[in-house]
């Protein structure tokens, strides 16, 4: 049962060939075992999940039609609110925080029959690209326990790769779904900005954040998107636009597929393993009859700089709410202490070093005398970047391809003393967030250049609201690639 996909589980539960209770029992046991040894799972909802599974089985026996995700065990990144258990954002600040409501994406999954079995680890407040910046310890990569699984949706990607669940929710502000998916050899989808409600996603950078699924196959990504996408009056940025069903026609090839390749995607940033996997991926597309065209997107060179300014500026504002008064951790008050001092001490005690660094950066770039030079210029670069993407798509590209990351998963601790080096790893993923475009990471190879077998990801980016077509192009690649279902060689014993 371990490697069964979400669509297969749902079909089997619906037909009665397996009970939801058996599926959930096994997933919970795996989450408590492998999930804890990878430090991918922060909390399991044993009673809640088993109760829901039994209720679902009983309803089926009464003749009720189960939903499209009947009995599918799901892990939810712990910056997405669940009314069951805690929502910690992997921060001491919210260590004991419980949400009074479910995020819309969670509520929609559960309404479709999925069963949330627990919460997955992450970089604190989703800030980080390695999974190391959690107040509850780093997540480990199931391919090599000495390496990072990527982040910030570290636990969601590691858990799907390890076979604990076939589907997990992550959030993607600058690559936080796609980069860990690439490092763990699974599929990660960042939908178009506005397609999936952000209600109940603890805000990091509101103009960039988007919830997305991590799965082992493109079909399961499409299934998850079909369930969680769609307008939500509770999120003012949620789109009202009609969007096609991503499952319909998923196996139909994109006619005369044209794949654009920015010159930077073949640039010197790539380590040899990423460069060769990317070349192989383009050959796979060419073998499918796709036309490969070179693109010039000059603003990509400034994308990381623009991203770290915009995201940190928005984070410094969003995280101002964590004042130790209304939510979360409050420092022990001292007699006669001002509120300002108590707030500052509560934040300094409760927020981790990476979060404090981003808040400081964001505060600096927004401060008087710097806001125009940094923040406004970053937003101008963002406009140029979006215009360049629009022009590339208008010229006939269906998708734009890049490696998801410039190399395979690095060792835990490799960038401890150099945050900038860590930020530069995000060069391929941040542009889609700045421009609001849908993007997916697919397994495209395994490198043994560094001793252990490590997966690599191919990223495809599509025009806004062309998520269904993006998934079709991804499905074409998956069906032609020998890397469609990767399995980590090392899954530690429970």
């Amino acid at each position: 049962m371990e490697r069964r996909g979400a669509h297969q589980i749902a079909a089997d539960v619906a037909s009665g060939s397996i009970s939801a209770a058996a599926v959930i029992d096994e997933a919970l046991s795996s989450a408590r075992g492998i999930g804890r040894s990878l430090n991918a799972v922060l909390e399991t909802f044993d009673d809640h999940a088993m109760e829901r599974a039994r209720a679902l089985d009983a309803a089926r026996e009464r003749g009720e039609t189960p939903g499209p995700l009947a009995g599918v065990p799901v892990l939810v990144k712990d910056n997405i609110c669940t009314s069951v258990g805690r929502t910690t954002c992997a921060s001491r600040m919210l260590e004991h925080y419980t949400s009074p409501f479910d995020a819309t994406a969670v509520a929609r999954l559960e309404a479709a029959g999925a069963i949330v079995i627990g919460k997955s680890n992450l970089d604190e407040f989703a800030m980080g690209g390695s999974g190391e910046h959690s107040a509850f310890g780093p997540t480990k990569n199931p391919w090599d326990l000495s390496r990072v699984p990527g982040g910030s949706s570290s636990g969601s990607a590691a858990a799907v790769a390890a076979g604990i669940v076939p589907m997990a929710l992550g959030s993607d502000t600058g690559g936080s779904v796609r980069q860990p998916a690439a490092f763990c050899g699974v599929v990660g989808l960042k939908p178009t900005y506005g397609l999936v409600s952000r209600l109940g996603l603890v805000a990091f950078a509101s103009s960039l954040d988007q919830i997305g699924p991590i799965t082992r196959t493109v079909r399961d990504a499409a299934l998850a998107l079909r369930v969680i996408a769609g307008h939500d009056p509770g999120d003012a940025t949620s789109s009202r636009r009609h969007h096609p069903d991503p499952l319909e026609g998923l196996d139909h090839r994109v006619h005369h597929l044209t794949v654009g390749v920015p010159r930077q995607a073949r640039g010197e940033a790539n380590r040899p393993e990423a460069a060769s996997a990317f070349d192989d991926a383009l050959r796979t597309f060419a073998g499918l009859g796709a036309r490969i065209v070179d693109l010039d997107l000059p603003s990509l060179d400034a994308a990381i700089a623009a991203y770290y300014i915009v995201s940190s500026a928005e984070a410094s504002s969003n995280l101002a709410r964590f004042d130790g008064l209304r939510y979360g951790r409050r420092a022990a008050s001292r007699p006669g202490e001002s509120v300002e001092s108590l707030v500052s001490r509560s934040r300094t005690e409760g927020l981790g070093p990476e979060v404090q660094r981003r808040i400081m950066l964001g505060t600096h770039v927004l401060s008087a005398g710097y806001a125009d030079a940094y923040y406004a210029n970053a937003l101008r670069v963002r406009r140029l970047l979006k215009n360049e993407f629009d022009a590339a798509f208008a010229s006939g590209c269906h998708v734009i391809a890049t490696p998801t990351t410039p190399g395979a998963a690095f060792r835990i601790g490799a960038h401890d003393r150099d945050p900038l080096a860590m930020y530069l790893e995000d060069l391929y993923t941040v542009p889609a967030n700045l421009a609001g475009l849908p993007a997916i990471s697919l397994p495209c190879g395994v490198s043994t250049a560094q001793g252990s077998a490590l997966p690599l990801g191919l990223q495809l980016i599509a025009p806004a609201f062309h998520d269904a077509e993006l998934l079709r192009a991804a499905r074409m690649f998956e069906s032609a690639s020998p890397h469609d279902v990767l399995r980590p060689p090392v899954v530690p014993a429970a």
Partner: protein
Amino acid sequence: MRKVARLARLDPDDARVESLRAELSAVIGYVARVRAVDAAGVEPLVHVSDEPAHLAEDAPGPTLPEGSAAAMAPESFGPYVKVPKVLGDEGGGA
């Protein structure tokens, strides 16, 4: 660094101020490249959505149950969030 920390409502100790200075100098030095991009006359893009903003209907809707907001606070008193004295001799700084 101290001024930015105060604006950010953070209170790093001296050693942390020094490490932040080194880390942030490198990052700020890097992100300064946005200033070199020829973007004169380009309208800043704050938000990607091109859909018109919809105002919510001015009508009562569901709210969180009474007391649930206070339950999220580290200190509460009945349905109220308890905070240190804000006005008066000792407070007022926040």
